[in-house]
């Protein structure tokens, strides 16, 4: 009971001080949190873009290596003849990078949309592919340029 009587209570200044401190600390925590969330999403987006580019690259390199003829005549399309008489067509189907082997149904390869893709022969007869991949929200594009070596054409 004596203890209670001895208690002085809390002054207004003390309360204000505590509130100020708490708000400073919590805003710092909040900023760190939102920043890390931003970084996390940014990294996730980059990984997604990179994965899409990787899988597209896997397809392209495999068939370009085997190419007997490479046809650039249609804009934003690449037709490759391989093996005895097989043919594969790479193109953007509703923005998604897709492939069509002979008369099989179209295979969608990327799960992100491509804003654009260009196929061009280099002066050394290599195949240059320039692609612009959109992020999921469609707010940003990432550009890639790769050069492939058709083994049979050099």
């Amino acid at each position, binding site marked *: 009971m004596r203890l209670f009587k001895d208690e002085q209570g809390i002054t207004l200044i003390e309360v204000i001080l505590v509130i100020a401190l708490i708000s400073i600390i919590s805003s710092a925590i909040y900023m760190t949190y939102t920043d890390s969330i931003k970084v996390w999403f940014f990294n996730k987006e980059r990984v997604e873009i990179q994965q899409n580019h990787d899988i597209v690259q896997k397809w392209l390199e495999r068939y370009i290596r085997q190419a007997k003829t490479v046809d650039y005549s249609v804009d934003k399309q690449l037709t490759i003849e391989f*093996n005895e008489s097989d043919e594969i067509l790479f193109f953007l189907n509703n923005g998604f990078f897709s492939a069509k082997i002979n008369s099989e149904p179209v295979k969608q390869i990327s799960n992100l949309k491509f804003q654009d893709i260009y196929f061009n022969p280099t002066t050394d007869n290599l195949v240059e592919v320039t692609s612009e991949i959109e992020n999921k929200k469609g707010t940003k594009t990432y550009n890639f340029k790769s050069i492939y070596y058709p083994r049979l054409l050099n």
Partner: protein
Amino acid sequence: MNKKSENGYVLVLAVVILTALLVVILAMSNLISADLSIFRQTSSSDRAFYAAESGVSFARKNFLSSIDLTGLNNKLINAEVNDLDREYFDYKGDLAVRFTAEGVSANTFRTVVVTHLVEEELMELTKAIAAENLDIKNNHIVSDGEIYVNNSLTGELEDKDGNIITATVGGEKIPDIDFDSLADKANNVIDVGNTISYSSLPTYASDDALNDVEDIGNEFTFVRGNLTIDNAINSINGSGVLVVDGNLFTGSNLTINQADEYINDYFVIIVSGNINIVSGETSDDDIYYAGNSIIYRGLMYAKGNIYFKNSLSLDGSMVSQGDITLNNSSNNSSNINYDPGFMLTLLNNGIFFNSDEYNEEDFLGELVEWQEL
């Protein structure tokens, strides 16, 4: 009562939190391991592909030699070349070689199939007939392909239209071959002393594949001493090789690869000899003696002379470091047609003429096929 139940509550809370943490950790490790396995699969697939590709490069470098993968596989890390095949075949009329290499990394397999044309001219055997001297008696021989002599051509050769064919004289080399290396490559080396008859070869063969006289046509047989192809032997069929380190005699009317089912087979005969036996005469010249008439598809090569008593019909090539004598060409039906198909037989049996002057890779021509399976 109250106090007791509160204590229990803390325990339950701890268990609940621990369980929740465990679930979260398990889920995360699941996600991570799934990601890892995708990554591992991709990277071992890449490793397997590059291993297969390096296998093909290795096979190119060792185009003429036997392929031993141990050295190559010792250099590869986390991957190896599982299987490497070399196959010679006819690619749209040209001689070609196909390398099939299978790479493996962590149970992921990738196969690369590569076909090159073979530079046929480097095989040196590009003439229908090549000899020191060529002596053509009696009737003309109708001929396709080039004729080469180091010294002189006696007699006349005509093409199908009746035009006279001139031979290239001098300036080139008649291919040479090392007989010791041939003995190393043969399936059977038969060394029984002096003269042996063709029909008795299976008796002396060590290889089970050579049971019957018929089998000789598909085997690589090396005979030390003289060989007589008996009169009773009328045909030899197959894509085999017969090497005689001595003289060869044949009986009359021998046909080689003339049956319909052997239309794509080329038989190779390679002979060296020290004694000349023509009608009982002997001299110091080397000799390869052919009997009455021969219809032949393949290659006939002799370090010594080649002598035909009567008619000859040849699809392939006939080469002698000595002299070639062709007698009757009976009613002009005899042909000499250059046909490089015999090179397939040579390659399949690892036989090369003058190959030491070149890098093995030089034999590889245009790349015509690249497949990834």
